[in-house]
């Protein structure tokens, strides 16, 4: 039995994080939750994830800062962004942040799941792709 993918959710709204955690776990992922960017970075350092699902507006360290920090370490980690609204000056749509997908709240957990599945693929892609 292969090891399930490990998904890290960074979301300050506990009930939303719980719901997504519940759904993704039900679908067979191993899921961790962090309440903000700082917690997420700590978690990643301790327990590397296969994908990151993150909110943008969070206290302490927001989604933008988290994605920047993640990209400094790993250019291939799939990132799914859930946001209330994208500010005009956000450059997250830029190529350099890929692989990255953006969804507006309210999000459909099935869409998140399908996106993660597509980004992660049935077989891990070669690290030097």
């Amino acid at each position, binding site marked *: 039995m292969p090891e399930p993918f490990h998904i890290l959710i960074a979301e300050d709204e506990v009930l939303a994080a719980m719901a997504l955690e519940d759904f993704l776990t039900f679908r067979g992922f191993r899921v961790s939750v962090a309440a903000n960017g700082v917690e997420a970075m700590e978690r990643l350092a301790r327990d590397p994830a296969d994908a990151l699902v993150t909110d943008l507006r969070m206290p302490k360290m*927001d989604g933008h800062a988290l994605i920047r920090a993640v990209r400094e370490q790993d250019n291939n980690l799939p990132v799914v962004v859930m946001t209330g*609204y994208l500010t005009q000056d956000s450059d997250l749509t830029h190529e350099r942040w890929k692989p990255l997908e953006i969804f507006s709240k309210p999000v459909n*957990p099935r869409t998140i799941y399908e996106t993660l599945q597509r980004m992660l693929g049935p077989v891990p892609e070669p690290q030097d792709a």
Partner: protein
Amino acid sequence: MALGLDELLDTSGFIPHGVCLLWRPDILALHVGSDILIGLSYFSIPLALIYFVQRRRDLAFGWVAQLFALFIVACGSTHFLSVWTLWSADYVVEGVVKLITAFASLATAAALWWLMPRLLALPSPAQLERSNAALEREIAVRRQMELRYSSFFNNLAEALFIVEVRPDGQFVYEAINPALARATGLDAERLRGQPVDDALSPEVASAVLSRYVQCRDGGDSIDYEETLSLPVGERVFHTMLVPVKDADGRVIQILGSGRDVTERKRLQEEMVQTSKLATLGTLAAGMAHEMSQPLNVIRLWTENTLTRLREGVADAARTERALSLVIEQTERMAKLIDHVRAFGRRDGGGTQLFLPGDSVHNAIDLVRHQYSLENIEITTTSTTSGLPVSGRPLELEQVVLNLFSNARDAINAQRAAGRTSGRIMVAVVDDIDTHSTVIQVTDDGGGIAPAVLPQIFDPFFTTKEVGKGSGLGLSIGYGIIDRMGGRIEPHNIDLGGGRRGVRFTITLPSQPVPSRDWELSHA
């Protein structure tokens, strides 16, 4: 030796006076003519005198004129007797008449001297003329003044009225000016001399009487705003009362002036509304986030549950928990919507007793999350014992929100300049001694330049760039706090560690009502 009257009048031994004149007809004629003329003249003068005294009843010392009349008649009689004694030697009779004349003369002379000081004191016609002229000038000046003041009273746009304060405690309208009649629709003629109770409708009378009593008992000028139901409709007046006191310091009259500020109030409320909408605009971004959160939770849990149902793996306990969560989130959203709806309402609710702390906490709840996302921390200290204030809770909330929004702008400006900043400290404290509640909002946003400090409450004054601030927030806030009978004051403060900021202190008068009573009445 006693003589009888007959003996006394017996002049048979005497010779008539004409003998002395040797009966020379020319000398006789001279004496007789002169004496008769003098006698006739002397008899006519008293008639004239008595006639004069009779006609001039206001004459001082009229009895002196009568004395004169007697004296002159006596004098006249001696001249007639002089004629008589030319031919018949009735010298006794003549002597008696002279004696009478002597007494009358003496009495008149004595009376004249006795009266002299008082006669001298009588004003002369010239004096009277001078004083009359002076009086006429005085009257002219006073007429002119009266004309000027009545012109003021009648033509000023300010509504003026004069209330007489009677010793029995009654207040009576002495006069109201045409401006007041126009502004109120009351009839100036009908009001004159009317007690206030009779002149006005019972509600209006009781409202204005309480102010008159306050002015009379306080003995000082008062000014206030009042809303009155008048024949012209509901009007708001800014009224000033000035007491007029007598020598003993008792208030005998109240002078009142009033200005119809209904229109100004309406504009003011319009401005409050405009500023509220502006505040709403800045809140909209935050609201979008606040709404998207529960919506997201609802979507996630419903999809979650639906998926499990479709795949036949739903269990009742999990489904119930998910649906309960969904309901909770809809309630959270409903509350937000209610709040925004109430906030946007024109009147913002009626004036009522409320806890100022509640408004402050509602304001904090509205922005806390949004601000925390921007790493602005709002800390609170509250030591209020729950004394209510009077006003509109949502208006106070608007004032506090405006202070928060200014603080946040200042903090962001500090950060843009590379300085550490990011705290808003809120305190709500009761001051039992002054019966007031104090709300302090302090930020570490660098403070306000002392040069602009005096201007910050001016309408349309703003230090923010074009499009960032209307310049109305603080001026509206000032108006709201002022209407609540309170005040709002800014101070630059040093927070230590090189951090500086501004502290706004709002002081509101507490209402000394036991909290249980007003809670019941406002439940």
